[in-house]
């Protein structure tokens, strides 16, 4: 039924949020979220592992849910995987709609639910030591407000 543009990508390459934002300009309102590797907590490298195949399916399912729920004209989810450095972009989500509330809410939905519904795992290297990042209850809470 929907003619919305959906773009989902899992990539080892640098994310270009500027190009992604402009590509989303298909409705009256465009909202975006960009997540960056923190610079301030001593992490020298962040590694993102994922579950190939299942990841893309999970992101596509999320984007389709958002398109349906908010009647979006476009939705984008891009997630970086592999090793990356502080300040680099990990994730980009974007939503376009005729209405600003729809675009803003859908964009928040995409990033909140991505954190709990897509199979990615972060490993931080701090002072030469690797450690797997623990899941946070606050992420579950943020995701649950959309259920």
């Amino acid at each position: 039924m929907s003619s919305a543009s959906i773009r989902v990508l899992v990539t080892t390459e640098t994310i270009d949020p500027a190009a992604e934002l402009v590509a989303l300009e298909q409705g009256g309102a465009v909202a975006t979220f960009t997540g960056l590797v923190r610079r301030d907590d001593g992490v020298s490298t962040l590694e993102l592992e994922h579950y190939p195949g299942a990841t893309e399916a999970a992101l596509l399912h999320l984007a389709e849910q958002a398109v349906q729920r908010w009647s979006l004209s476009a939705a984008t989810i891009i997630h970086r995987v592999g090793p990356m450095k502080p300040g680099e972009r990990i994730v980009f989500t974007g939503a376009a709609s005729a209405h600003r509330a729809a675009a803003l809410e859908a964009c928040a939905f995409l990033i909140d639910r991505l954190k709990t519904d897509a199979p990615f795992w972060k490993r931080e290297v701090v002072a030469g030591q690797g450690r797997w990042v623990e899941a946070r209850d606050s992420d579950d809470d943020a995701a649950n407000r959309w259920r």
Partner: protein
Amino acid sequence: MQLLYFAWVRERIGVGSEQVDPPQTVATVADLIAWLSLRSEGHAAAFAEPDRLRAAVDQAFVPLDAPVAGAREIAIFPPVTGG
């Protein structure tokens, strides 16, 4: 049945995937985890705290009491931390 492991589950077991043929008594993902724990010290270490484990059956997230009958691919991993 193809098994996939991710993050510290993969590291502790030492492999990212393996082929297994569990007995009929293994009905759920939780049963599978208990049965796998006996395979090696690495498996025992990875599966010591089932509360910290999550699973997917044929790429769909499921609770640990989900059935495994007919599954082609089962993945076991820690809670996800993307985004």
